[in-house]
């Protein structure tokens, strides 16, 4: 349309939008004027008045229809119609409040649960990590597959060679977790910290809130006492004082200059990390050697470099290192997308839950579809009349669809509210074992998802009644009563199909929940090798000037343990470098005297190594199955002893008794002759060094599931703390306190903290937690998955009951007359009861096998989530199928009873 015409049309367009009522009036006047004129002309020509009027109307092709076609030319017709439809639809929905309330609630539940779970999936799995160009970040490990370590930390010199000689990375950085005791302020505090190379700043690219980040100059020993602090620490301990830059803080009793403050959003390597200091070692420090593999390496790929290409590139570099340095025999490098590394583990759980919650929505939709179907039948007459008085079928379809979309939209809005509440209650659920939960938000992506769901569900449950519109038969339908029209076979057929779908889907969910519940039960029933009740644990880190010498550490450990043990109510107190679910590991080479010496260092086995005080096994509730436990007599003056766990015993002495064997926590001397000579020359070993001290195995302890109840037990070697003395061992300054108490262990927190404070006012004590809490935390993800799937299954079961009951009662109402006739002809109430029940049983008889089959296929995908349960466990399948059948029959029972109680005289008279 050209501009002048558009301008000329403007007034009339505006009028027909704004002055809608007048436009309607005018249209009315215009057409009735026409009819009057036409009729007058015909009358004048000799037709009877009434006839002339009728002819005039007919010539116009029906006044209402012509009006409708005129209105179609008016602007914003669609918006007008939509508003009208919505108004009409909401009136209709208000007229049937029970139907609307149920449908909306069911949809809100379905959409809400889906949106909440999708928020988690979006935040955890889909969103890039919170770093610039995060898709280029990869995690790099050293790999020693021959020794059973497909992924291990990396030695700093290896990292430096990787960084210098690769062709795939823009930058690489290394870091490791550590802790500092913040002292010189009251109270002292144990802070999680990371030591990292300055290059890590270029890998992760954080923007400091204040000040600067340290450069690689700070990695030089002597210039290394600089620190970057977290926003949280800066606010908590330094009053958000901007003049903190350039000031010094006491870490482990040494002065560090504050360079900068990082925003709270920077959470590398952990959410709780509050200090970052340079990765720096004194020249000759053994930590900075190729055999100490402890740093985590992150790399930023060059643009367009793929992970496999970078992997191949690093493999070449690792091969070069192997050739040059014998201690790197068998050491390779392996990389993985960083995000995958972080979230890969939870993906199966989340996808499982997503599938489950999608099924709940499907069931909800089928339920609502059933309701809508029933309702559309009741409205059959209304629709027929509307077609008769000029409503286009397309227009009516739109009207019905509007009603359904309105239901879905209201459901979605309430659902989003529900999802919002759910997402916000996530932090209050306690640990659920998911990474990145802090990044979960109900933002654009989940909202768009919810909107999509609303449209999908609205169309999904709204389409089936539309089929009916196609078949509207004016003449017949108007004649028939609404009631008799309702029982049409295609309608009840599709309702039955919907019910079968519901039954089988919810059976799938029940089976899934059953599998997870049994897994968790099995997991809690297994013998962890320790008793988690009545045990308090805490971590202590001795650092700083007071603990430079190993005697000082040994003394402190002894004093602390003795004093804690004397607290009233304490049954046993111990220190250990590792506890169950403490998430620490310490590996050492393991060598047995009298066995053939392996050809290279790479062939020497490694085992987990723990320094423990005598009461450790008692405090933990672990059982020494053979031999003896450590005693206070096993001190530095006595012959060295060791205890091994059963896994270690059976691996290295499959057919013999290891007690009495002599072993060492080091490689055979002949394989490290050069290192020993070097250490003697450097004065680190005495000139008369006779070899690594041998340990005599005195006991075997039942396996303690340290890594987690569902994880394999590593071969473990325990040595007495008091015997961990130089030359080749040192007592660890970083250890756990394990205290078994007679009463509630939490009550001992205060006395123990006071005791530590008395021994050393500058020493913080951290991670005070009961062992039970640690165990619960380790099962958190499984428990969360089980609870979530369990509640989904519960909701699904409820929906099935509601759906089944609804459809069956509806059928009974519809067939009252028929039943009345049957009774009149001699059917007993029993017959009718059986008739209705058999309808329900038919549905269950098809739905249950379908569900079993579907579950059998789908459960294969969940196999990784199960623990000592077969995905096809017949008992679980049988039991849930029985539950399903019982529930279905129960849902049919009430309608069946009401059918049996029908009074034939009443029903027949009503017709």
């Amino acid at each position, binding site marked *: 349309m050209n501009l002048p015409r558009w301008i000329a049309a403007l007034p009339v367009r505006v009028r027909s939008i704004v002055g809608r009522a007048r436009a309607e009036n005018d249209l009315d006047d215009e057409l009735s004027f026409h009819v009057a004129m036409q009729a007058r002309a015909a009358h004048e020509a000799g037709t009877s008045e009434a006839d002339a009027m009728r002819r005039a109307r007919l010539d*116009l092709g029906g006044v209402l*229809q012509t009006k409708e076609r005129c209105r179609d030319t008016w602007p914003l017709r669609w918006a007008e119609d939509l508003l009208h439809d919505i108004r009409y639809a909401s009136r209709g929905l208000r007229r049937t409040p029970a139907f609307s309330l149920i449908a909306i609630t069911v949809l809100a539940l379905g959409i809400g649960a889906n949106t909440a779970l999708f928020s988690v999936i979006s935040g955890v799995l889909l969103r890039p990590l919170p770093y610039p160009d995060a898709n280029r970040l990869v995690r790099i490990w050293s790999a020693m597959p021959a020794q059973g370590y497909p992924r291990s930390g990396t030695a700093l010199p290896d990292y430096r060679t990787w960084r210098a000689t690769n062709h795939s990375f823009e930058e690489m950085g290394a870091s490791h977790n550590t802790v500092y005791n913040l002292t010189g302020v009251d109270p002292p505090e144990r802070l999680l910290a990371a030591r990292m190379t300055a290059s890590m700043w270029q890998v992760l690219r954080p923007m400091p809130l204040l000040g600067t980040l340290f450069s690689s100059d700070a990695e030089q020993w002597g210039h290394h006492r600089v620190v970057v602090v977290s926003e949280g620490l800066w606010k908590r301990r330094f009053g958000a004082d901007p003049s903190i830059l350039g000031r010094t803080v006491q870490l482990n009793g040494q002065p560090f200059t504050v360079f900068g403050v990082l925003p709270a959003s920077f959470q590398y390597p952990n959410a709780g990390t509050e200090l970052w200091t340079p990765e720096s070692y004194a020249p000759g420090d053994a930590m900075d050697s190729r055999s100490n593999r402890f740093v985590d390496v992150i790399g930023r790929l060059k643009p367009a470099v793929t992970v496999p290409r970078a992997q191949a590139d690093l493999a070449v570099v690792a091969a070069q290192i192997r050739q040059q340095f014998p201690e790197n025999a068998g050491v390779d490098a392996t990389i993985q997308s960083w995000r995958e590394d972080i979230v890969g583990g939870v993906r199966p759980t989340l996808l499982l839950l997503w599938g489950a919650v999608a099924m709940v929505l499907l069931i909800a939709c089928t339920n609502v579809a059933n309701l809508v179907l029933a309702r559309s039948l009741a409205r059959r007459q209304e629709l027929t009349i509307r077609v008769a008085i000029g409503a286009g079928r397309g227009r009516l379809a739109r009207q019905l669809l509007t009603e359904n979309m309105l239901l879905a939209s209201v459901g979605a809005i309430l659902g989003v509210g529900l999802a919002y509440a759910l997402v916000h209650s996530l932090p209050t659920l306690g640990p659920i074992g998911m990474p990145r939960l802090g990044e979960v938000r109900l933002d654009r992506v989940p909202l768009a998802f919810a909107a999509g769901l609303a449209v999908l569900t609205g169309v999904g449950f709204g389409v089936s009644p539309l089929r009916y519109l196609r078949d509207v038969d004016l003449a017949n339908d108007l004649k028939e009563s609404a009631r008799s029209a309702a029982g049409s076979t295609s309608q009840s057929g599709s309702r039955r199909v919907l019910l079968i779908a519901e039954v089988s889907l919810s059976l799938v969910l029940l089976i899934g929940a059953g599998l997870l519940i049994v897994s968790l039960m099995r997991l809690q029933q297994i013998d962890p090798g320790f008793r988690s009740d009545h045990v308090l644990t805490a971590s202590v880190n001795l650092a700083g000037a007071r603990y430079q010498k190993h005697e000082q550490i040994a003394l402190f450990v002894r004093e602390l343990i003795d004093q804690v043990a004397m607290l009233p109510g304490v049954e046993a107190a111990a220190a250990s470098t590792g506890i169950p679910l403490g998430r620490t590991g310490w590996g050492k080479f393991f060598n047995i005297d009298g066995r053939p010496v392996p050809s290279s260092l790479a062939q020497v086995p490694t085992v987990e190594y723990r320094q423990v005080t005598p009461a450790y096994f008692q405090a933990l509730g672990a059982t020494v199955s053979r031999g003896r436990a450590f005693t206070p007599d096993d001190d530095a003056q006595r012959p060295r002893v060791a205890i091994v766990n059963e896994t270690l015993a059976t691996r290295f002495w499959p057919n013999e008794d290891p007690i009495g064997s002599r072993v060492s926590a080091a490689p055979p001397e002949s394989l490290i002759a050069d290192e020993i000579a070097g250490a003697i020359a450097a004065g680190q070993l005495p000139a008369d060094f006779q070899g690594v001290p041998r340990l005599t195995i005195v006991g075997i302890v039942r396996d303690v599931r340290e890594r987690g109840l569902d994880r394999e037990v590593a071969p473990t070697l325990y040595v007495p703390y008091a015997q961990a003395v130089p030359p080749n061992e040192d007592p660890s300054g970083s250890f756990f306190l394990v205290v078994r108490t007679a009463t509630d262990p939490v009550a001992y927190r205060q006395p123990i903290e006071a005791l530590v404070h008395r021994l050393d006012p500058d020493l913080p004590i951290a991670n005070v937690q009961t062992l039970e809490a640690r165990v619960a935390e380790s099962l958190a993800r499984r428990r969360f998955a089980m609870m979530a799937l369990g509640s989904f299954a519960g909701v699904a079961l409820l929906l099935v009951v509601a759906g089944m009951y609804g459809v069956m009662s509806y059928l009974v109402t519809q067939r009252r007359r028929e039943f009345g006739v049957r009774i009149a002809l001699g059917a007993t109430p029993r017959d009718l009861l059986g008739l209705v029940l058999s309808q329900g049983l038919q549905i269950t008889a098809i739905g249950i096998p379908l569900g079993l089959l579907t579950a059998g296929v789908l459960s294969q995908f969940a196999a990784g989530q199960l623990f000592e349960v077969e995905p096809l466990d017949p008992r679980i399948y049988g039991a849930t199928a029985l539950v399903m059948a019982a529930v279905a029959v129960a849902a049919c029972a009430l309608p069946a009873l009401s059918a049996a109680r029908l009074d034939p005289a009443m029903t027949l008279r009503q017709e």
Partner: protein
Amino acid sequence: MSKPSDLVQGTLDLLILKILALEPMHGWAISQRLRQISGDALQVSDGSLYPALHKLEQEGSIKAQWRTSDLGRRAKFYELTRPGRKQLELERANWERLSSAISAVVKLRQA
């Protein structure tokens, strides 16, 4: 429901514009005039006339005014707008081009 006009698309618009070019008229008068000038050759149902009028009005080719008709009843009188007059010229030119092309083809067949 009545089917739309059998007339060639847009022909009814041209006829209406042409009729209104002479003087403003109300709908019934237009329908009489249509019957009068085309006889039985063009079957324009009244049911098609009014939607067409409303469409032309919404497009800005014609505008309407309520006046009292000769019978003393209020009637809606349509008249051409200035852009409508241009539109008429355009449509007429199109129509002539089209009809001469068609008749040329038809004559060709007869020959």
